[in-house]
């Protein structure tokens, strides 16, 4: 049956090494739960790409366009001619464009972050409170009992201080 093996490590290097070994043994669904962002995760678990940059980029473009449309559009809707100067004046409207570019860029980045990091959490997920203090956890999803045994062994060999089984929704 499907379950998760969880190994708690005392330091980042041991946890990373264990994750590398599990990856080498063919486990795909691996998570490191750590109190600090680890350097070198990508060398072990493979390169990560995120969609956040696309959100930022297109958010900023949409913001810029809507900023200019806002300033120019309202100027056209409410005509206020001053000394024969053009109704759509670029220098001041570019400032509005600039501010709106950044505003929408920021908001889109937040949206991209929430979507790509799958936050906020709506259903219960595996969590170890110690990992917010000083323990480095490796969790691995195992499809069958055999896999679970194999994963447990690998975690123990790598020097895990504690190895436990977690079934999703068990409350741990």
């Amino acid at each position, binding site marked *: 049956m499907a379950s998760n093996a969880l190994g708690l*490590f*005392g*330091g*980042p*290097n*041991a946890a990373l090494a264990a994750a590398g070994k599990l990856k080498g043994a063919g486990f795909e669904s691996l*998570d*490191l*739960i*750590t*109190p*600090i*962002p*680890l350097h*070198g*995760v990508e060398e072990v*678990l493979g390169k*990560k790409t*995120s969609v*956040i940059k696309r959100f*930022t980029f297109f958010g*900023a473009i949409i913001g810029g366009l809507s*900023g200019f449309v*806002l*300033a120019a559009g*309202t*100027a056209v*809707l*409410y005509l*206020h001619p*001053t000394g024969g100067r053009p109704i759509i*004046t670029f220098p*001041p*409207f570019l*400032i*509005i464009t600039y*501010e*709106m570019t*950044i*505003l929408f*860029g*920021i*908001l889109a*980045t*937040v949206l*991209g*972050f929430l979507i790509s*990091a*799958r*936050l*906020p*959490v*709506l259903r219960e*997920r595996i*969590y170890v*409170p110690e*990992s*917010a*203090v*000083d323990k480095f956890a490796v969790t691995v999803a195992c499809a069958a009992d055999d896999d679970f045994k194999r994963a447990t062994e690998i975690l123990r060999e790598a020097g895990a201080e504690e190895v436990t089984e977690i079934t999703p929704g068990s409350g741990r």
Partner: protein
Amino acid sequence: MQRRHEDIKFADVNNDIVRSLVETGPRYYVTLAIAVLITLACFFFPWFYQLYYGIGAAGMNHPTVWGTYLASFIFWIGLSHSGTLLSCVLHITNSEWRKAMYRSAEAMTLFSLMVAAMMVMVHVGRPWFIHWALPYPNQMELWPNFRSPLMFDVMAITTYLTGSSIFIYMGSIPDFAAVRDRTTGWRHHMYVLLSLGWRGTDTEWHRLGWAYTFLAVLIIPLAVSVHSIVSWDFAMSIVPSLHQTIFAPYFVVGAIYSGTAGIVTVMFVLRKYMNFEHYITKVHFDNLGKLLLALSLIWTYINVVEVFTGWYSNDSAELESLRYKLFGFYAPLYWEMILFCAVAPLLLISKRFRTSFVPMLILSIAINIGMYTERFLIVGTSLSRQYLPDSWGVYVPSLVELSILVGSIAMFCTLFLVFVKIFPSVSIYEVKETLPAPDEGKTQWQATH
């Protein structure tokens, strides 16, 4: 209890910072009560008085129709500049020493922006029409005039407030999660919501890292634009000594300058009263001191340029305005500003001065007094000497205005006092990054750089 930075363990960081949130002594409550009382008595009471009896309760009158309210507005916007801006710049340049102090610096940004927004409310006289500054379809078919620097202000400050709140919140999510596990009752529920269910998986850290960096990159040009725009409120008028091209960099440098001095003040208070002695150390004061010195030199240079260009123009109105600023009614304030912001900071050349806490505190407060004076002079002296002598006058703030100035400081303190009990005021996870990892001698950072 003096520990060396290297001796701190990961668990100590959690303990110390959670303790700063949940253990509250009587001293805190007394301070908070005083701050709230002063805010009510000195800010809200005079404001309601002014609303009831009319804007005449403030000393502003023709020709000086802008007074301390706008000076305070520029001052608070300026104070907000160092927090998020400095934090972003130091994040992008990978500066280690940022990590212990940036959270409270960002909070300073947020709260001074809020106080600045309140100052606008007070200044406009009829704050119940403030929504007229927003572009929305209304029954009058009127739209705001986006050619006006005042509208640039509305857009820039809204964006900056949004950006700064998001930046401080996003950086705090992992810390909220750490605090969530250690608290009970209403605090626990609050942190459950604030942490969004953060677990600290490698994917979450990766996404947070990217999003945070993108935000930093977006906020740096934003912060620079905000104070440039505030300067255009003045520089785009044709009043002598306001109509200057140097105003945008002048304001931005002044803002970062007073903001950095504000950070020194806040760091001193946090260090002393929240027992963060081993997180906020001499290194921080030394670095902030160097930054202050550099900024004071740039600020002095721009001041010299401002006076020089005024003199070199040989324009009679400009010359009179300059003479009035340097030797007129407000001259004592001008020379006080030069003393506090250009001369006194030269002490920072000495390392011994930079690493002494109390002298740094005194200097940082002096710099901010000087910077407030600068803003007052920009508004006050320029409008007091316009083109024709019949539009000359002298402006002295009324009691209502002075009281609201004191009240705004108390309001800032109140907001900050509430902040230190809700947000971990030193970043838990980033301080841990600067510590040796449990299974190796080196820090994560040292191992990869």
